[in-house]
């Protein structure tokens, strides 16, 4: 009901507001002196309020990085928790300036739903978690299984597609909230839980006995997760895109939260000098201060640090395909020059 009301409000905003969304997000953010950033309602590792009520996670850190690059202050973020089915609407209607919420980059969303994706921050894929006692080792053995899933995501579609492609009868139980889906799985209502692999790992780490649950090896979909902005504001899209590339490049170039100040003064690498504003003015290309990346890296660190802090240290996730291209992964930031 609460979500229904919220969704209604967003739709009403679409109906009622004058069409001022297509330009000027940067001015809007500067004027408000605050970045409205859409996040999840609580996914450990990505965006989740900690015990002090601060939002932490990889997605939340990218909100902070953008705020630091644009406003010079990473704390000037207003987090807006969004349910799955609101995440695209909220940004296309101008409710938030940016959605950074484990959102899969798909053709339909990018082309026909009024949003633009920026740059991938995490390469994920959908998988299954089952109770170890069920004694199965492959998703192909799941014929007849009941699967708990969250509504309003590509997850449901992938589940149906996988069943059709492999001739498996999979019975879905679809929940509004992630928490309810996980609880229903834990209580034994479902044989399996399906969502992105990273989240399965996060939920498994939250169970009393993680070893009683097995994540099956099959990855049934490609889920490139990327922040999204409203369609039509190219400058704003460039800003968010290049902040992401900047954070990824920083790891590649060895710039960290700790050494960035030192680098400004002492680095002789022209790539680093350009990026953090000791020579040239890369920020000027996108309407920002020349210190944009210095501010962002000082606030949240580089991609490796963000990953380590949010995903490896707490959830035990390996880098996998999210390693830098030099290290055998597919993370490849466009050059900043």
């Amino acid at each position, binding site marked *: *009901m609460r979500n*229904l009301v919220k*969704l*209604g409000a967003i*739709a009403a905003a*679409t*109906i*009622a*507001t*004058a*069409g001022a*969304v*297509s330009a000027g997000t940067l001015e809007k953010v500067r004027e408000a002196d605050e970045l409205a950033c859409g996040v999840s309602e609580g996914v450990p590792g990505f965006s989740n309020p900690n015990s002090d009520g601060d939002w932490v996670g990889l997605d939340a850190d990218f909100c902070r990085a953008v705020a630091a690059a644009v406003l010079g202050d990473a704390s000037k973020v207003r987090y807006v928790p969004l349910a*799955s*089915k609101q995440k*695209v*609407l909220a940004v*296309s*209607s101008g409710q938030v300036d940016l959605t950074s919420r484990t959102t899969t980059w798909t053709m*339909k*969303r990018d082309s*026909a*739903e*009024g949003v633009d994706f920026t740059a991938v921050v995490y390469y994920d894929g959908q998988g299954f978690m089952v109770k170890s006692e069920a004694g199965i080792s492959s998703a192909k053995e*799941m*014929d*007849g*299984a*009941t699967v*708990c899933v969250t*509504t*309003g*995501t*590509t997850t*449901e*579609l992938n*589940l*149906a*597609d996988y*069943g*059709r492609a492999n001739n498996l009868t*999979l*019975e*879905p*139980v*679809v*929940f*509004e*909230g992630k928490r*309810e*889906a996980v*609880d*229903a799985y834990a*209580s*034994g*209502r479902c*044989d399996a839980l399906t969502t992105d692999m990273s989240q399965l790992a996060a939920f498994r780490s939250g169970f009393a006995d993680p070893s009683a649950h097995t994540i099956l090896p099959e990855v049934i979909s490609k889920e490139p997760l990327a922040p999204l902005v*409203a*369609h*039509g504001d190219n400058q704003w899209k460039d800003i968010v895109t290049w902040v992401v590339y900047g954070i990824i490049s920083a790891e590649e170039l060895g710039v960290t939260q700790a050494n960035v100040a030192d680098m400004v003064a002492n680095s002789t690498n022209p790539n680093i000098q350009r990026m953090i504003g000791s020579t040239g003015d890369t920020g000027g290309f996108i309407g920002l201060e020349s210190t944009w990346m210095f501010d962002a890296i000082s606030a949240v660190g580089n991609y490796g640090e963000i990953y380590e802090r949010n995903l490896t240290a707490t959830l035990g996730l390996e880098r996998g395909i999210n390693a830098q291209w030099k290290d055998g992964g597919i993370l490849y930031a466009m050059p900043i020059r």
Partner: protein
Amino acid sequence: MPMTKTRAKSGFALSNIGSVASQGVVLAIALFFVYLLFTNTQENLALRGIESGFAFLDKEAGLPIGDSLIAYTPMRSYGYAFLVGILNTLFVSVLAIILSTILGVFVGIARVSNNWLLAKVAAVYVETLRNLPLLLTLFFVYSVVLAALPHPREAIELLEGVYLSKRGFYLPRPLAEPGFWTFLIAALIAFALGLAFWRWAALHKVRTGKTLPGFWGGLGIFIVLTGLAYLITGRPVGSELPVYAGFNFKGGLAMKPEFASLLIGLVLYTAAYIGENVRSGIQSVEAGQIEAANALGVSNTVVTRKVLLPQALRVTIPATTNDYASLVKNSSLAVAIGYPDMVSIGGTIIGQNGQAVEIIAMWMAVYLTINLIISLGMNALNARVQHAER
């Protein structure tokens, strides 16, 4: 009814050209705003590059649905998937309305019962359920249902082919075998005969004053004749038993825990309100009537059935219409506990498709239609019982 007629007439008599014109202007302004809203929406959607229109309803849905009254596969269209949702909403609403009415009448009677314990239990029930948010009640019922039931491997077998587990309540599915249609016709004839006997007994009572067991006699006729027909046509109703295989039961009829929890939650919640309506109805009947009936030596049961309830229910109907409407709207909380109602399936369509304005418009249209139909039906019922008064 006569009241409203007079009022309408006097309203007409008062009207003059000025008031007609002013009403016309107000209507024109209202329509203009609707038009503005519509065109502005269209513009905004186009501006943001969002598709609009209802063409998507024909496209393949691709989404899985766990509980459907009609055959469904992900290959069907979005429109068909939405229809599955409408039917699920209707099904749970209709069942909940029937059950909450029955429970509500009992609760209302218990509330004013002379039995102290019964009255207090009913009071505690009403106060608890009315003062808790329905969402909380649903979560509670759902978690209790899931916690109480065993894993399907250790399912409770109530009768042969009747299983209770976390996967739901499984029953044998009746199957038509040769001779089924003959049997069905025979059963219908038996039903008509039973009904005829019941009517005849009522007439007989009016003519002679003698009471015959019309209802039980009629029921007996129906059961005996149907049983004979079943044997003569060679037992034409088979059954498909649910069998535990792999992960879950296959075959049979199933009632899922989500459906059961939603139904129980809605019934418990709404019955508390209906119970209060019935209580106020009962208390609106003058005590003198009951005393008079008692003085004539009529038993308490008959007083309740023939004197109290017919008058009490008249007062009850208008308030209960509102509760039925609320129940239908409350069924949208299904999404919280995983039952695929119209809102749940519509939400998925929004997630896949992004066309929120259209889906929300469809939700509103369906709820409005259902509730207007309920209103019409209840008003007609109201008019009938009010008319019968004196």
